[in-house]
C-alpha cells in the first residue's frame, strides 16, 4: 500500500485489537488505514496496557496520542516520513505503558530459540543486520524496540514491520522472505515471514559501534554492556525506571553473551554472527 502524497480525505476511525492492547486511530484516509496496517501484526500478549487513541489532524500536519482521555504527546508530522513518526511514537508509548517490562532502542532476532538483541544508534545498521540475520534463518522479533521481561529473562516480540530505508536495503542486500505492508517517505515497511510469536531467552547482546570498512567483533564484559545500555535509549532514560532497569538488565546480562561489532556495514557480519550465536548454544 503506497501513500506517497499528502492525504487530505475523510476522517475515519480504525480500531485495532493487538492482543491485550487496543489502539484507536482516527484520521484522514488513507493515512489512518495505512498506520493501522503497519501496526496490525503487533501482538501484546500477557499484558493489558491502557488503550491508546491516536488522532491525526485532517490536513495530516499533526497528531496527538492520548491514554484515558489524557494527551501524552502531540507531534508535528513531516511531509515525508509521517508514517515513521507515527509508528515510532506508538511503539515508544507502548514501551512506557508496559511498566513490568524493560525496553531498549534495539532490534532483536531469535536464533535456534535464543534471543539476540542488536543495539545501536539510529543509522548504525540495526535494521540491515536484523534483515540479514532473518534472511539467513533467524526468526524476526523486532526492529526498533526490544522489550525484555526481567523476571523471565526473555525478549518479548514486537512484530512491527522492518522499516527499510534505501540505504538499509543497499546494506542488507536481499530482504528476507516476507511482504511489504506499506511504503511512505522512502521507507518500505517489510514484515518477514515466520515471525517469532513467543518470548525467547535473552542470550546475546550485540552493540553496534563505528569502525572501518570490514566489521569486526570484540568481546564486551557484561559490566561494560550494562553501562552501554545506560548510555543508550532504554528504561534507564526514565527516572522512575532506573532502579528497575539496573536490577533487571544486570540479572539478564549475567547469563548473556556480550559483543561489540565495529564497522561501517554490520550487515556484512551477519553470517559470522550466526555461526557465533549457534556455537554458543547449549
Amino acid at each position, binding site marked *: 500500500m503506497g501513500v506517497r502524497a499528502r492525504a487530505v480525505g475523510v476522517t475515519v476511525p480504525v480500531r485495532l485489537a493487538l492482543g491485550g492492547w487496543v489502539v484507536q486511530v482516527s484520521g484522514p484516509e488513507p493515512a489512518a488505514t495505512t498506520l493501522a496496517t503497519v501496526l496490525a501484526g503487533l501482538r501484546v500478549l500477557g499484558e493489558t496496557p491502557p488503550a491508546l487513541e491516536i488522532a491525526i489532524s485532517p490536513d495530516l500536519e499533526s497528531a496527538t496520542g492520548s491514554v484515558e482521555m489524557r494527551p501524552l504527546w502531540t507531534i508535528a508530522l513531516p511531509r515525508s516520513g509521517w508514517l515513521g513518526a507515527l509508528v515510532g511514537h506508538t511503539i515508544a508509548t507502548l514501551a512506557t505503558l508496559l511498566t513490568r517490562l524493560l525496553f531498549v532502542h534495539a532490534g532483536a532476532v531469535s536464533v535456534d530459540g535464543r534471543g539476540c538483541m542488536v543495539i545501536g544508534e539510529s543509522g548504525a545498521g540495526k535494521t540491515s543486520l536484523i534483515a540479514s540475520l532473518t534472511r539467513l534463518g533467524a526468526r524476526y522479533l523486532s526492529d526498533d524496540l526490544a522489550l525484555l521481561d526481567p523476571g523471565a529473562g526473555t525478549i518479548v516480540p514486537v512484530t512491527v514491520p522492518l522499516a527499510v530505508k534505501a540505504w538499509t536495503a543497499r546494506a542488507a542486500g536481499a530482504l528476507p522472505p516476507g511482504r511489504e505492508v506499506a511504503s511512505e517517505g522512502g521507507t518500505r515497511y517489510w514484515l518477514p515471514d515466520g515471525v517469532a510469536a513467543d518470548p525467547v531467552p535473552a542470550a546475546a547482546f550485540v552493540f553496534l559501534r563505528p569502525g572501518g570498512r570490514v566489521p569486526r567483533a570484540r568481546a564486551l*564484559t*557484561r*559490566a*561494560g554492556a*550494562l*553501562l552501554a545500555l*545506560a*548510555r543508550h535509549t532504554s528504561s*534507564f*532514560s*526514565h*527516572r522512575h525506571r*532506573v*532502579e528497575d532497569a*539496573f*536490577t533487571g538488565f*544486570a*540479572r539478564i*546480562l*549475567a547469563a548473556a553473551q556480550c559483543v561489540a561489532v565495529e564497522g561501517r556495514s554490520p550487515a556484512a557480519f551477519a553470517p559470522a554472527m550466526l555461526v557465533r550465536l549457534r556455537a554458543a548454544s547449549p
Partner: protein
Amino acid sequence: MPGGDDAGETVPVPAVRPDDSADPAGVTFLAAALDDEVVLLDLVQGQLVLLDPAAARVWRACGAPAVASPPSAGRRAAGILRRLARAHAVVRDGDRWVCAPVRWV
C-alpha cells in the same frame, strides 16, 4: 572518566533520589556483580560507576567489617580509593575508608 572502557568509567542516568534522601535502610547505592567487575548505581548523584576487578576488590574490602586495616597501603590502592571517593562510593571514617550504604541486586 566518561567515554572510555577504562576502570572507573561513569555513565550519567537520572537521579532516583535527587533530594539526597536515602531509602528507609539508608541505602544510597545499588551494586551488581558481573563476573569479576562491579557496577554501582548511585541513586543520589544519578550515575553508574564501573569498577574493574582491581577496583572491585578494593571497594569490597572497604565493606568488610573484619578488615581492621582496609587497603590503604600501596599507590594503586590509594589511587583507586581516591577515585571511589570522588564517586561517593567510599567515605572516610577516621583513619579508614568504608563503603557508602549499598544494597546488592
